[in-house]
């Protein structure tokens, strides 16, 4: 069993009367000659690292190089209890995404998904939505399988490197993957999953990669939080019955095309966008002179 597009994933699921996670699992088994148990064991180990990274900075700030995002997760987590404007659920989701970003920037242990810079999106979405729907660990791993399968297609037909495709390829790809996992956890159909992926990419198309001082902190942490939210609202739009009109596979192609049109200054060079602002440049000078 093998797939190179999301359309193929859906066709395989329909032909063999399987869930999408079973398609991804069967393809992985065929590809790597590993047993289902081995694959679940490895996936579980990675999910555990994800989970820890999304919790670790919730209670106390972690020191990061230059200190740009030190404490953002705990601050958001404290605020979440008040409900804020977007409610406790969304604020906690964002705090978890920020936590993984903070851990990453403090030289802590993370699981790249699909990259280190985007490591907060998938854990925060799987944890928050999993909890909301009372999913057990097995079901969360099944959602992670689906998300990873979507990631395989994006990596195969486009890119997940910020240097190639901008932030839309990193946090955007993570949002598309997470949206698929969220639909599964909420009990949505395969077609709904496909639509959620397409909508998530529509919402993020054109997002540039512009890290201040080249550090994976600002605006990377904010993007992890906002793309976690994108995953949820895209899943919700699809679950509500919205037709994406454009298929997910075509949105993946579009994301890749847009990425290639981005100038180098907006592809992880730390030169344009947020990095190129006077404040961004001042931080560059401060961080590297201080050391």
């Amino acid at each position, binding site marked *: 069993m*093998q*797939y*190179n597009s999301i359309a193929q994933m859906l066709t395989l699921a329909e032909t063999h009367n399987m869930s999408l996670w079973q398609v*991804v699992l069967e*393809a*992985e088994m065929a*590809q*790597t000659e590993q047993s289902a148990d081995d*694959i679940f064991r*490895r*996936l579980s*180990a*990675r999910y555990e*690292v994800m989970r820890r990274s999304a919790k670790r900075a919730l209670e106390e700030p972690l020191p990061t*190089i*230059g200190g740009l995002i030190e404490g953002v997760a705990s601050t958001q987590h404290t605020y979440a209890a008040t409900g804020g404007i977007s409610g406790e659920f969304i604020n906690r989701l964002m705090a978890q995404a920020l936590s993984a970003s903070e*851990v*990453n*920037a*403090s*030289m*802590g*242990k*993370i*699981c*790249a*998904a*699909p*990259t*280190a*810079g985007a*490591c907060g999106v*998938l854990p925060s979405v799987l944890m928050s939505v999993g909890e909301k729907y009372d999913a057990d660990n097995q079901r969360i791993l099944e959602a*992670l*399988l689906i*998300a*990873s*399968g979507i*990631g*395989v297609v994006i*990596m*195969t037909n486009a890119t*997940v490197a910020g240097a190639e495709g901008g932030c839309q390829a990193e946090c955007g790809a993570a949002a598309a*993957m997470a949206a698929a996992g969220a639909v599964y956890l909420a009990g949505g159909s395969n077609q709904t999953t496909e639509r959620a992926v397409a909508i998530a990419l529509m919402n993020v198309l054109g997002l540039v990669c512009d890290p201040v*001082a*080249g*550090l*994976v*902190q600002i605006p990377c942490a904010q993007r992890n939080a906002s793309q976690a939210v994108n995953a949820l609202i895209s899943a919700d739009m699809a679950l509500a019955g919205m037709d994406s009109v454009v298929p997910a596979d075509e949105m993946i192609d579009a994301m890749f095309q847009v990425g290639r049109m981005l100038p180098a200054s907006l592809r992880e060079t730390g030169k344009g966008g947020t990095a190129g602002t006077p404040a961004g440049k001042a931080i560059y000078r401060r*961080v*590297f002179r201080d*050391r």
Partner: protein
Amino acid sequence: MLSIFDVTGPVMIGPSSSHTAGAARLAQVARRLAGRPFTRVTFGLHGSFHDTYLGHGTDLALLAGALGYREDDEALRDAKALAGAAEVTYSFHQADLTDYHENSVEITFHFSDGDTFDVIGSSIGGGQILIRRVNGMEVEFSANLPTLLVYHQDKPGMISEISSVLSDAGINIGLMRYTRRARGCVACAVVEMDDPAGPELVATIAALPDVFSAQAVDLGDREDRHHAV
């Protein structure tokens, strides 16, 4: 087709797979190649490694790797204190390694007897590495598989000598590459194997006639490393 573990993974210490995780792996391999306790280690940083190392903890990852810590060990960030505790001094400088990849480093180990050992390697993305030069000898290996380096006199019959020792031990050779300084001089065999060669086996090969030395590098945890592209 890609594996899902190419997408969801690797597990690593942030913030960068190439500038942090790859750097730690490079130094770990170099340490194993050096093969004995050292008192000082210096790092010549080239290209993007030099330009961005402060922001990505590349210096800490390299130093921790040289001290034997893995790329997923949070001890990386305490590398300087660990070096102090191990009574190892270190320094970082800019190096011109133009012939090599943008993310390359020259790692030099200094021993108490005044001898040195020098390795050049590159971090080529996603935590993957290539070792390019060992003590002046041009090589190329990724350390994804257990690897054996055998230095010997450049003369006929050496390949079969080495491979027969390995085959007697039931070890399958995945790839064997050769480099030599000049004809009839020192040759270096780089042998990538499906299973690690134990210390006795390495000693057996080192004791073969006309073999000067043999070194084994095995970073372990192969199942995951295969997929950590």
